[in-house]
């Protein structure tokens, strides 16, 4: 579990930190990172809804699927209106690869073991994304509407992180 957490953090941060040394990510890259993070969490929620029978875990997964889809719908509408094409970058690629590895590992688990691993990863994932949002993505966002959407996203994901942390103590 610890190894996953560190891996997720390291993968996500290394490229962002490198980018921050020069000009930082541009809006097209920021949009891609934020959108990718949302999609990955929706996919993780779908896996949980397929595998888990724990009512609290399922309620959490339904919330993740709904809230992250809502943010991403607005993100798509915004970048379309702004004429910005989200641009793949090492950070979003690293997030996707880490999520694929987590998906495969969770797929081998069942019952309480799955629930604990899913929730632990949700804590780690939201922590990673929130640190990136607060420390890199929001400060570097140029467009005011994109920045505002990221800030709303941060408030939402902080709520999710607290929820996941609370849930983690009951499914451990």
């Amino acid at each position, binding site marked *: 579990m610890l190894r996953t957490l560190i891996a997720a953090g390291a993968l996500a941060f290394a490229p962002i930190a490198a980018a921050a040394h020069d000009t930082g990510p541009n809006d097209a890259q920021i949009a891609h990172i934020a959108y990718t993070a949302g999609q990955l969490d929706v996919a993780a929620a779908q896996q949980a809804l397929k595998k888990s029978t724990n009512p609290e875990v399922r309620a959490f997964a339904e*919330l993740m699927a*709904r*809230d992250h889809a*809502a*943010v991403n719908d*607005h993100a798509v509408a915004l970048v379309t209106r702004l004429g910005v094409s989200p641009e793949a970058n090492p950070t979003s690629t690293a997030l996707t690869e880490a999520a694929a590895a987590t998906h495969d590992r969770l797929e081998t688990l069942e019952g309480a073991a799955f629930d604990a691993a899913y929730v632990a990863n949700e804590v780690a994932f939201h922590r990673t994304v929130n640190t990136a949002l607060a420390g890199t993505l929001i400060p570097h966002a140029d467009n005011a509407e994109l920045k505002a959407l990221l*800030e*709303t996203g941060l*408030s*939402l994901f*902080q*709520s999710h992180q*607290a*929820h996941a942390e609370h849930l983690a103590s009951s499914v451990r």
Partner: protein
Amino acid sequence: MPNTSRLRSGRPVVETADLTRRAALLTVAASAAAAALPAAARARTHTIVMEKMRFGPSPTGLRVGDTIVWVNRDLFRHTATARNRSFDVDLVPGASGRTILRTPGTVDYICRFHPGMTGRLIVAS
């Protein structure tokens, strides 16, 4: 002894049973009218907006009989849920709902989906 507790005058309580009963009936009628008509005239509607993962400021001067209109202007589904379970309004983005304040007191409320969203209603009788 007849119940004279509704008589509010500073004069000595009339001990005659018949007079007391009449006075009590009049008082009851007057109380009912006071509760119905002026309360209806006084009752106000207050709006609390949910936006950017927050509840807007709680209105002040709330009284029993007033209505809260909850408006979800956020991107996400939210609830306004009383911790004492006296109300639970579940709103998709763009929706609104109403709560009529029935009892005086302090009611803390949260969003069940995002419990970091909190607010407090202080309702006077």
